[in-house]
């Protein structure tokens, strides 16, 4: 980056330094999706909305691409700065600005770590519901961009169900407000449209979230099954009986082995599948529901049921689930994960097909997933030093996503499309569907400087090529949009 631009950037965020040395850029060359890498030209750490505005305006002045970044835990390459863009690292804007228990709201800055919010309100009996497995490090702003989920979304919904209002710096530097502290704001639901736009519609600088009362009681149940099929039908049986647990998670044998090796939770290594069920809510009736769940598991041939006796055992059971990805690291140097979603009833078939994919490509696949929502998380094990194996991993990943789509599902339940899966979008969406998404992005982000090269593929391309932002809008699209805007009835 040219020196005078660096100086201008430094003047905006002073006294914070601007990082630009090549070795400093290594940290920012990828996020949790490590198969694609692109070093930025500079990294800035704004502390205020005004500084974000100034950085964005500067980027516009010099036509430099930019991307906001939270903790970099994203799993689809959403925070990569393509074309040597500027990374706007939001971690310094990590304050809780307001907590309003009476109205069950909080206003926070985007760099706030997800778990820190729940921790801050815990003593008063509240929490913030979306709980991605990375909640100890991921930020609320990143969650807004990705519309993050977590194990408890089955009952409580994902980020979009808990965000009430946003302050956003648009890609041209204008500041706007969506939604608000009250509900049912008239007009189009731009809060809902913005959440999950993967950083391509602007940079969020303030978030109003809903806080929930902590459940009065929990009951955490672990059931072991001799086969994935039996476990899957037990899951369907529980839901079919009208019970919606707070969480309903599943692990296959490979994952069980990894977790048990890592944390010694006393899991039976001979079980082919494990289902973790957590009831939460009011204490009344919970014992009865737990007994019904145990009976349903028995009916589907479970080998054993364990009910957490106390908070310590509950924490241990959850530790196994939340750290499963890390534990898989014991099995191989690297793993690649997808998070395609299928209708819950297709789980047995999906897992059989994953097994076939494992055999076909000669790769081990461990499964740790949100069974209640049909949200798969196959972990394909590999060694990144083996370039031939890396190729097979990518092919297996594609085959997994194909399977999800074939079974009536979608490409991603919570990780987002980002750079990783954008070229698979045409499997689900027609050109006309994608055209509407293009146009919306064009409205928010007409210069395509804000996180370019993400979410939507170039037409006619089927596979990720070199990492560039070349799919900035084509002249044809620009023309269509200009035509669409011509003669528009714009009231001011």
């Amino acid at each position, binding site marked *: 980056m040219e020196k005078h631009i660096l100086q201008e950037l430094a003047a905006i965020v002073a006294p914070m330094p601007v990082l630009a040395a090549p070795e400093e850029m290594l940290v920012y060359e990828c996020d949790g999706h490590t198969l694609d890498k692109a070093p930025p030209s500079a990294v800035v750490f704004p502390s205020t909305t005004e500084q974000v505005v100034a950085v964005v305006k500067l980027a516009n002045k010099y036509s430099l691409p930019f991307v906001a970044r939270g903790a970099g835990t994203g799993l689809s390459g959403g925070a990569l700065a393509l074309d040597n863009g500027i990374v706007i690292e939001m971690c310094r804007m990590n304050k809780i600005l307001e907590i309003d228990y009476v109205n069950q709201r909080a206003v926070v800055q985007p760099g706030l770590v997800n778990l820190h919010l729940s921790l801050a309100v815990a003593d008063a009996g509240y929490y913030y519901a979306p709980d991605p497995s990375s909640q100890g490090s991921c930020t609320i702003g990143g969650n807004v961009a990705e519309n993050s989920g977590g194990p408890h979304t089955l009952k409580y919904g994902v980020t979009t169900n808990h965000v009430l209002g946003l302050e956003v710096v648009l890609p041209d530097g204008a500041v706007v407000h969506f939604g608000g502290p009250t*509900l049912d704001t008239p007009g189009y639901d731009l809060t809902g449209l913005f959440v999950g*736009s993967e950083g391509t519609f602007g940079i969020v600088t303030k978030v109003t979230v809903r806080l929930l009362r902590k459940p009065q009681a929990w009951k955490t149940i672990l059931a072991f099954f001799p086969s994935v099929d039996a476990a899957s039908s037990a899951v369907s049986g529980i839901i*079919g009986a009208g019970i919606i647990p707070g969480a309903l998670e599943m692990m296959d044998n490979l994952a069980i082995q990894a977790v048990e090796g890592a944390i010694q939770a006393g899991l039976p290594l001979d079980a082919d599948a494990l289902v973790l069920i957590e009831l939460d809510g009011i204490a009344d009736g919970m014992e009865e529901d737990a007994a019904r769940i145990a009976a349903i598991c028995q009916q589907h041939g479970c080998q054993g049921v364990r009910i957490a006796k106390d908070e310590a055992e509950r924490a241990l059971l959850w530790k196994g689930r939340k750290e499963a990805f890390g534990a898989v690291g014991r099995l191989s140097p690297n793993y690649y994960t997808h998070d395609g979603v299928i209708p819950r009833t297709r789980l047995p078939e999906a897992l059989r097909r994953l097994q076939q994919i494992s055999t076909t490509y000669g790769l081990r696949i461990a499964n740790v997933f949100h069974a209640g929502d049909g949200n798969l998380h196959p972990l394909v094990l590999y060694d990144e030093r083996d370039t031939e194996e890396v190729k097979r991993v990518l092919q297996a990943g594609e085959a997994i996503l194909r399977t999800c789509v074939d079974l009536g599902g979608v490409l991603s*339940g919570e990780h987002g499309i980002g750079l990783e899966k954008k070229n698979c979008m045409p499997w689900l969406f*027609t050109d*006309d*569907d994608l055209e509407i998404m293009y146009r919306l992005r064009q409205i928010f982000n007409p210069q395509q400087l804000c996180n370019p090269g993400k979410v939507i593929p170039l037409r006619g391309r089927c596979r990720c090529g070199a990492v560039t932002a070349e799919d900035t809008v084509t002249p044809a699209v620009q023309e269509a949009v200009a035509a669409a805007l011509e003669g528009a009835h714009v009231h001011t």
Partner: protein
Amino acid sequence: MSTLEGLATALESVVGSAHLLTNAAVVEYAIDGVLPTMVVLPADEGQIAEVLRLASEHQATVFPRGGGSHACMGQTPSRVDLVLSMQGLQRQLAYEPADLTMTVQAGMRVVELQRMLGDRGQFLALDPPVTATTTLGGVVATNVSGPRRLLYGTVRDVLLGVAVMTIDGKRTKAGGRVVKNVTGYDLNKLYIGSLGTLAIIVELTCKLHPLPPGELTLSIGCADEVALAPMLQTLLQLPLRLNSLELLNAAACETLATHADLSLVETKYMFIARVEGTPAVTQSQAQRLTEALRHLPLTRPASVHAWNAAEQERLWSTLGELTRGTSGPDAALDCMVVKVSLLTSALPAFCQDVQETAAHFDTPWLLIAHAGSGIAYVCIPVPNPEAPDVERLLASLQALEECVARCQGRRVVERAPVAVKQECQVWGPPSDDFALMCAIKASFDPQHRLNPGRFLGGL
């Protein structure tokens, strides 16, 4: 007009003469008294696409319509060329009970849908006030909601996927048929509550819920304003499976008692709470609730009454009718309905302010609030709907707006006589995000032919 005559002929060849109304029958489809030139009732998506292409050719304005139960929402249109009725698209397309998801055509009637799901022990967790003809597409387009939103949320919390027909007759979709999905931009949210101004919603996929094993409705009297805040907070913070919590003023209680044929005690305010669970669980919740209220330091103790199943049903359906602005035999009660959004904490002060303000007017104002969500419906009776006293109603509205402003809320006039609507911005003033909304509208409907002039700021 000659071009529209050409349109009628062309439309007739698409849908058949039985599905095109150009005569006196169009009167049933009038929007705020404005008669449509024609009404088309397509039978499938293909016909809708063709209708839209023909409408484009003839530069006709298009007004999508479900069952018409909420057609009073929005600003009065200046001219209605073509009403596009969705009544012909009522098919269920996919229903997998074990997945708790369902896909239907947008013209599916809500009442029928719930009956069908109820047979399988499930329901769609939306309970806006509906009529026999209200369609799911209409509910999504207007984003109407009901008391159960306290526990289950609104349309944005249950809609998984949507297919629309754009103004140029192209079918596009967003979302999917699974319960969790971040594949592409979340256009579902954009179509919800867009009042038919962006595209014609043709197909919807929704998340379903198991029917609760039982419900218990309790009414809780509240003798004075000072008790409102502590009672409200207590009710919201107790460990209950509370799916509804309504707050009514005395005028609303009285009307409810009459129209639902219930003997409600006379009280200044009344909370109506509904808990769910097995009979044993609802009973224990009722006890906990009664106990907690007894411990509040109130000057007059709160009276709690539990309603039986038949009474509950009358109570909730009448409450719904009241928030829609009509109730009683032959719609004997006709109200101007103003929906107010405010923070729950501001609700007690708002209630008091409304009481004092209403005292200056000759008819009592009904106030019915979804108390846990900060949504209040203020219903101002219109004594003679055929010849309303417009000045009086405008004065009432202005006085109410001042209450709303004092409580930092926002308001939407959901129902009012046309002459009143013509004198006010029914959606209130737009905010700093309005330029983006205009750009979105322009990209979907550049010629401004979909439900023109009816939505916020003329979107």
